[in-house]
């Protein structure tokens, strides 16, 4: 059962991701991206990463993509019409390179790869995955956790500084 679900999600993920890249209209791209995130969340669930699946939905599909859409609307972008040989060249190069990347890494991996050591200790199934994560997050991963807090702070400040309205010291003279 699980594998089929996985395949389904995977197919959807790839399709939507492709649409994101392919579709002319940024709004549409954004919406496809939401779908992509959702399907990814599904895959997380299949992988017993329930917590991450939820966060994926909430943070990504919820927060981030809304922000995206908001900006797109705000800038009310026209379709980006792309024509001309130079675009074609860029497309060709892009896809070609992508294919090559996949090809090379694929051939490399087919040489046979090995994975890191498997730990005996299973994640405590008693309370859910979320609880387990919570525990380590506040104990072992305290330091990075704190860093992320500062990171967010910085991001906030930065966003404000850059996107602040026309008035403001830097405003005039532009």
């Amino acid at each position, binding site marked *: 059962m699980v594998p089929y679900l996985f395949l389904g999600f995977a197919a959807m993920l790839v399709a939507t991701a492709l649409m994101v890249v392919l579709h002319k209209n940024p709004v549409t791209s954004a919406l496809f991206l939401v779908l992509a995130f959702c399907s990814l969340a599904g895959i997380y669930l299949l992988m017993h990463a329930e917590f991450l699946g939820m966060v994926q939905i909430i943070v990504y599909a919820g927060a981030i993509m809304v922000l995206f859409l908001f900006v797109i609307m705000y800038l009310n972008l026209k379709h980006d019409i792309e024509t001309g040989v130079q675009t074609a060249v860029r497309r060709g190069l892009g896809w070609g390179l992508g294919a090559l990347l996949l090809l090379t890494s694929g051939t490399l991996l087919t040489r046979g*790869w090995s*994975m890191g050591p498997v730990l005996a200790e299973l994640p405590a199934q008693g309370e859910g995955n979320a609880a387990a994560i919570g525990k380590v997050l506040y104990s072992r991963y305290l*330091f*990075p956790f704190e860093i*992320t807090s500062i*990171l967010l*702070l910085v991001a906030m400040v930065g966003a404000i500084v850059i996107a602040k309205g026309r008035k403001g010291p*830097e405003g005039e003279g*532009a």
Partner: protein
Amino acid sequence: MNLVPQPSFLPVDWWALGAVITLTLGCLVLLLLEFLPAREKGNRGGIVSLLTLVIAGYSVYRVAGEKRALFEGMFVHDPLTVFFTLLFCAVGVLSVLISWDYVKRTRINQAEYYALLLSAVLGMVIMAASNDLITIFLGLELMSLALYVMVGFRRARLESSEAALKYFLLGAFASGFLLYGIALLYGATGTTNLARMGAFLGDTTVIDNPLLLIGSLLVFTGFAFKVAAVPFHMWTPDAYEGAPTSVTGFMSAGAKAAGFAALLRVLLRALGPIEAQWGDLIAVVAFLTMTVGNVTALLQNNLKRMLAYSSIAHAGYILVAVAAGGPEGAASAVFYLAVYSFMNLGAFAVLTMMGQGRDERVLVSDLAGLGFRQPLLGVALTVFMISLGGIPPTAGFMGKIYVFSTAVKHPELMWLVIAGVLNSVVSVYYYLRVTVALYMREPDGESVAISWGTPAVIALILTLAATLYLGLVPQDLWVLAQRSVSGLL
């Protein structure tokens, strides 16, 4: 509730963490101070950040001798950390000094500026101090985010905003690669902790595990982007040119050093074994970086852009040291980084003074005749250029000596060394152009106005002194560098 028992912190640990904590607090204080009324041209931002940096530096320096691994070895306090933390604090101090009047005259709102500067320093410190790919990644992102914003700080200027956009998009792109690399390394070794990774790779026999190779290469790519190595360098000129001059100085010195700090630690602690698989790549990259940087710089008329290319070239020299590998190579790289930070910041200290109000005068032609009208600036800039060109008796020369004398040890790198010295000859050409403008040309039209400022002058004198001192008696820094790479945790 069986929480994982917290390791109890000794005082020394607090001192060791001092830098991180102080910088965080300083950042917060600055932001809070914004709520108090302030004069348009107040100095408190600068003062606070100076204090913060000094304290941060001191607290680490106080326990310089110690070796501590905290947070399950994610944060280590060892010679390398100490060296780089001090270096970053020094860079921070100098940047604050050269920004002091620049931010005022360009009307950059100080609180955010300094807050971001501190957080960038914080990010660098974390990069240098962390022994775990997670924290390295986070530190790198912290630094990068702050820098993205700082580059775009003069958001009314097209160049500034454009630079920010490019830097951001490419930075994010590159960190995508880095992240994927980390993922693969994690998959291949089962850990993100460098020490364990190193241990694992030490034991394991399957060194040519594709996961490992691809992962390590992607990680290398991520760092190569930060240190502006060819072919991941192309953002550099644009970002440097567009950014506010003070920021350019800061990032050219700090970000590069941070990138190398992390790269060195990763190579020394974890990827040493598999580096053998693609170590020769570094040599090639080093060669490309030197050559492309120097050759492209030949025809630049914008000093910031020229220095951008020169910084690419210098990344190349440092990569020569990295290619030489081992503690010695690392030591020479570290030494070179310190030296480079000083001379480069010095050059930027001069640049920030050029022009008045909100305009920047950073064309080579703007220097015409400056040498005789402003002797101090002239002499200083000349010394920095000579030093960047690697000509004695300046620090730059000692850096080159150290790097090349390490590389010469490896016969297979002889070609690289020869290419390196020839490159330095090429580079001298465009460094000389600056002195030519300074002393051998007369300004057409009115000569560029200089906006003097005590802090900037102090920074100038400090860097000048450092450049000459390290050029004449490099011994102490040399020893420090050697000690810094020995006995990593």
